[in-house]
C-alpha cells in the first residue's frame, strides 16, 4: 500500500511537538551533530586516508542525495566542486526562498522543526570547512525568520553553534537574511547578489559558478532547506541505509506539496519513486481523488515551471529489465513513479516536487494566463529574451483570456516562448517558457478554439471594449 514515509516530517505535526530546542533535544536532536563530529578518519584501500570531514562528504555523495530545490543535482557532487584551494573562506547558503508556485514544504520545516534544519546546516558547514553560513529566507515568511533566529540563539546557547562547537575546535556561525519578496531571489546566483545587498540579478555562468566565485566572490555552496535536512539523516543512518530509501539514483524521501483540484491537498513525504503520480492524487493516504463528478485534465508535476502533463498521456520510459538490459516501456501518466528520472523521462521534471492538479472545470487558457502573469511580474528583467518575452507572453495570454484572442495566438505564443528558453542568463527563462510551450502543445485545440471564438464574435461586431492593459503594475517590487 502506498504510504507516507516520514523522515523529515517525523515529528512535524505530532501533537505536542514544538519548535523549541528542548523539544528537539527530547526527540534526539543534535545527536547527529555529535555523531558527525566524532566521525573517525577512514582508511581507503589505496592506503590514503579520508579526514572526518571528507568521510561525511563522501557519505553524502554515496547516499545519492539529490537537491530538493528544483534541479535535482547530486548534493555530494556539488560539494565536491567547491574550490578548496583558493585560500578564500567557503560559504554555505541555505536557500529558504521557497517561492515556486505550488510549493509549501520548506516552510513546514522552518516553522515547525527549525532545529532539524540548523543541525543539518551545522553538519554541512563542518563537513565543508564552512565557518559562516546564511539562511536566505523568503520575505513573506517573517514568522519563519523569527523562529529561525530564536532557534539559532538557542543552539548558540547550548554550544551547537558559534565558537568551538561542542568542543570540536571548530566555529560555525549562521545568520538569517530576509528577502524582500522576489521569486528570482530563489535562483542561487540572484540570491547571492541579493545577499550581497544588490539587486537580485542572476550572474552569468561562466564565470560565476557559486562553487568557485560565489558569495563575495568566494566558493559557496547553495542548498535547499530540505536537502540540508537530509544531511542530518544521512549521518544518522549511514549512507548505505539512507540509499536504500527510495529507488536507485532517486534515493531518500521527498516532501511533495499537493494542491489544486484534489480532495485532500497537503504535504506528504514519500520515498522517492515508491509512489506514483496516480497514487498521490487518488490514494486515500494522499490526495483522495478529485472532487465529485470531476475528471482529471492535467497535472503540473514539479512546481509551476515544470511542463504540464495531460490526462491520458502515455510515456516511453527507460526501464532496467530483470536481465539488466535497458528497455523502453510504456508508462501511463498515473503510473509514473514520482521521482526525478521518471518525470524527466516524461519530458518534464519533479522540480520542487509541487504537484498541481487540474480537473475538467479548468480552462487551460486561463490557467496559463495566470501563470504567465506571475512570470512577467517576477522576471528580473536583466536579460532581453526573458525581460521582453515574459511580459509579451502575459499580454498575449491576457488578451486571449479576455475575449480578444486570435486563432493564430497558439503559434504566436509558441514562437515567443521558443525565443526565450535556452537563451537567458538563468533558468527563469525556461520557467517562463515551459508552461507556455507545454500548455499550447498539449492543449492546442483549446487555445485555437478560444481564439477562433473571439474572432467569430468580433466579426459579428460583439466583443468587449478594448481594455487589455495587463494587471501587473510597474511599481510592484
Amino acid at each position: 500500500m502506498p504510504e507516507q514515509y516520514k523522515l523529515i516530517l517525523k515529528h512535524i505535526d505530532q501533537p505536542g511537538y514544538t519548535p523549541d530546542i528542548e523539544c528537539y533535544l527530547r526527540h534526539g536532536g543534535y545527536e547527529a551533530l555529535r555523531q558527525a563530529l566524532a566521525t573517525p578518519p577512514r582508511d581507503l584501500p589505496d592506503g590514503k586516508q579520508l579526514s572526518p570531514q571528507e568521510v561525511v562528504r563522501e557519505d553524502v555523495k554515496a547516499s545519492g542525495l539529490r537537491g530538493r530545490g528544483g534541479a535535482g543535482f547530486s548534493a555530494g557532487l556539488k560539494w565536491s566542486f567547491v574550490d578548496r584551494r583558493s585560500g578564500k573562506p567557503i560559504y554555505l547558503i541555505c536557500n529558504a526562498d521557497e517561492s515556486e508556485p505550488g510549493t509549501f514544504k520548506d516552510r513546514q520545516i522552518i516553522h515547525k522543526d527549525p532545529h532539524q534544519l540548523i543541525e543539518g546546516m551545522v553538519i554541512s558547514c563542518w563537513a565543508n570547512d564552512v565557518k559562516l553560513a546564511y539562511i536566505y529566507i523568503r520575505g513573506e515568511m517573517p514568522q519563519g525568520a523569527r523562529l529561525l533566529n530564536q532557534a539559532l540563539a538557542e543552539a548558540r546557547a547550548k554550544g551547537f553553534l558559534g565558537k568551538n562547537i561542542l568542543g570540536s575546535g571548530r566555529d560555525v556561525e549562521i545568520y538569517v537574511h530576509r528577502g524582500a519578496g522576489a521569486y528570482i531571489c530563489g535562483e542561487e546566483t540572484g540570491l547571492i547578489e541579493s545577499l550581497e545587498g544588490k539587486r537580485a540579478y542572476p550572474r552569468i555562468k561562466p564565470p560565476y559558478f557559486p562553487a568557485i566565485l560565489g558569495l563575495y566572490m568566494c566558493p559557496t555552496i547553495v542548498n535547499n532547506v530540505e536537502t540540508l535536512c537530509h544531511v542530518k539523516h544521512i549521518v544518522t543512518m549511514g549512507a548505505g541505509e539512507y540509499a536504500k530509501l527510495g529507488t536507485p539514483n532517486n534515493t531518500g524521501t521527498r516532501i511533495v506539496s499537493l494542491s489544486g483540484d484534489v480532495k485532500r491537498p497537503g504535504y506528504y513525504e514519500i520515498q522517492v519513486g515508491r509512489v506514483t503520480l496516480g497514487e498521490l492524487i487518488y490514494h486515500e493516504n494522499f490526495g483522495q481523488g478529485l472532487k465529485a463528478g470531476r475528471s482529471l485534465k492535467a497535472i503540473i508535476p514539479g512546481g509551476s515551471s515544470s511542463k504540464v502533463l495531460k490526462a491520458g498521456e502515455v510515456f516511453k520510459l527507460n526501464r532496467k529489465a530483470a536481465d539488466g538490459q535497458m528497455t523502453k516501456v510504456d508508462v501511463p501518466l498515473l503510473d509514473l513513479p514520482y521521482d526525478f528520472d521518471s518525470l524527466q523521462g516524461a519530458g518534464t521534471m519533479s522540480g520542487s516536487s509541487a504537484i498541481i492538479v487540474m480537473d475538467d472545470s479548468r480552462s487551460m487558457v486561463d490557467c496559463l494566463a495566470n501563470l504567465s502573469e506571475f512570470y512577467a511580474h517576477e522576471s528580473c528583467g536583466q536579460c532581453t529574451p526573458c525581460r521582453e518575452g515574459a511580459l509579451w507572453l502575459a499580454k498575449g495570454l491576457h488578451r486571449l483570456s479576455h475575449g480578444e484572442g486570435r486563432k493564430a495566438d497558439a503559434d504566436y505564443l509558441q514562437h515567443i516562448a521558443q525565443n526565450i528558453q535556452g537563451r537567458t542568463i538563468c533558468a527563469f527563462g525556461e520557467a517562463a517558457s515551459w508552461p507556455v510551450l507545454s500548455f499550447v502543445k498539449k492543449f492546442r485545440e483549446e487555445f485555437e478554439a478560444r481564439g477562433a471564438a473571439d474572432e467569430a464574435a468580433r466579426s459579428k461586431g460583439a466583443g468587449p471594449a478594448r481594455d487589455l492593459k495587463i494587471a501587473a503594475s510597474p511599481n510592484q517590487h
Partner: protein
Amino acid sequence: MSNPATTTPAPAPAVPPPVEKIRIKVDGREIDVPKMMPNWQGKLEPTTMLQACHMAGQEVPHYCYHPKLPVAGNCRMCLVEFGTPMIGPDRKPVLNEDGSPKIARSVLPYEPQTPRGAIACATPISPGMELYPNSPATKQMREAVLESLLINHPLDCPICDQAGECKLQEYSVQHGQSASRFVEEKVHKPKAVDLGPRIVLDDERCVLCTRCIRFTKDIAGDDALGIINRGSYNTISAFPGRAFDNNYTLNTVDLCPVGALTSKDFRFKMRVWFLKETKSLCTSCGTGCNITIGSREGVIHRYEPRENNAVNGPWMCDAGRLNYKWVGRKDRLTEVQSRGQRTTWATAIKEISERLASATPGSTAIIASARQTTEELYLLKRLATRLGAVTDSVPRAGNADRLLVCDDRNPNSQGARLTGITFTELGIQLAWIADGIRNGSIRHLVVFGEDVTQQGIGADLLGKLETLIASDILPNATTARAAFVLPGCAAAEKRGTFINVKGRVQRFEKAAEAPGDARPEWEVLHELVEKVTGSTGFTTIEGLFNQMAKDVPALAGLEWGKLGDTGVTVAI
C-alpha cells in the same frame, strides 16, 4: 578600477614569452588564436568567443559588451551557435571517417533537436571548438533578440539624436526581420528625464544594457545609476533624490548604444552625419586626453573622447569635454594692434623684431603659457636665447581625481620644461621678472597666452615697461596694456603638439579657422625668430617639429610623421 592615465605601461620584457595558441574554427575556417587575452582591465583571461571571432574577421553584434567595461552578458545579442569535439566513453576524441574530430553541436540539454547558443562576450573558447557566427541558428537567435528589443521601443528615429550612430538602427538593418509579430500594448516609460545637469534620459529608448551603470560604478567610482522597477518595466534611474553629476557623466552618452542618454549640450543641435571629425587633444589639464572635435563650417559642436590606451582609454572628463565654447566667443581678439591701432601682421612683426633685436641683451623677459604648443614654446625659447631673455611659464594647479583629471591644469607643462622655457617648477622666475621690471633691468616683456597681472606683475609694473608684447586669444588686463596685441589661436584652430604630464608627445590637427586676423602663434613666432635671429627655419609644422626634435635632447629621434594618432612617450 582601470586607470589609464596613472598606470605607466609595463616595460616590454626583453624576450616576449611565447603566446600560447588554441586552434579553433570560425565558420569552417581554421584559425589559431591566443589562449589568453586582455580583459576590460587589461588582465589576461581566457579568450572569449567574441574576441576569437573578431580575430577571424567576424564581428559579433553586441550591445552590453564593451571592451573596457566589466562583462554583463545581459543583452544576449551576441549568442552564437558553437560545437565542441565529441569525447567517447573511453575519454578519447570521436573521429569522423576521414579522421577529423567529430563535432557535437551545442543543443538544449532538454531538447536535443534545438541548437543552443552561448554568449560570445563571456564564453571562453576551448581547443577544437567550432564557432558558427553566421549559421541559420545564430541568425535566428540574433533576430529574436532584436525583435524583443524593438517591441517596446518607440521607433522614433526621425527625431532621435542617436540616429546615424545607433546600434539598434544599424543591427535592425543588418540582422533584423522586417515585420514584428507584436500586437500588444507597448510598455510606456518616462521620457526626457532630467538625470543631472548634463544628461537627459529617454527610458523608452533604453535597451537596458547597463553600460551606463557599469561605467558609472566601476570606472567613475560613483554608484549613482541603477535600475528601478522589475522585468519589462525596468527603468534606468539616478539614485532617487540625487542628481547624476560626477565629472564623467557624458561618457555614458558615448557608451549608450542607442539614443537613450543624450547630452544636454549637444541634444538636437546637429545631425551627426553633418559633422566633420578632427583628431585633437583636450587642453584642460596635463592628462592630454585624446579627442575628436565635431565641427561644421568652422563651428565646433562637440568634443568626444578618442581612444588612446596609453592616455585616457576611451574616456574623458565632462569639464574638458565642455570646455570649448570660449573658442567661439564674440569678444575674441581678432585684430593685430600696434599701440591701439589696427595694423597688419607684416608691419607688427617688423616693428617687434626691430624692437627686440635692438634691445640691450638681458633686458627682455618672456612669459609663455604652458597652454602654447611645444613648437611655439621651442620658438620662444630660441628667441629668448638670442635675446639673453629670462623665461618662465605660469603654473595652473587644481585637484587630481582617481581617474583622469590631473592636478596640473596646463596641457603642456612638460613642453615648457623640455624646451627650456622653465626649469622644474613653473613660475619660480615670475617674482624675479617682477623685480627686474621694478628695478628697471627688464625693459621689454613678451607674453604669450597669460594675463600676467594675475601673476604679480600688475598694471603698475606693466606701465614701467618700454615694450609690452602680448599674444592671446581672449582680451585680458595684459593685452589691454600691450603695445602690440597679437591675436592667437585655440588649439582647435591650429596644428601642433602637447606633451602630457607623463611625457606623452601627442599631436593635434586643425578643426576650424581662427576668426579675423588671428593666426597660429607658431607661424607668427617663426617669422619673428627668423627676423630676429637671421636664421631661416621651416614653414610647415612637420618641418618645425622635426627640427625641434633635433634641437631638444628629450625629443631626440622623434618625427612628426612617427607620432601617429596616439603619440609617443618620451623620458621626462
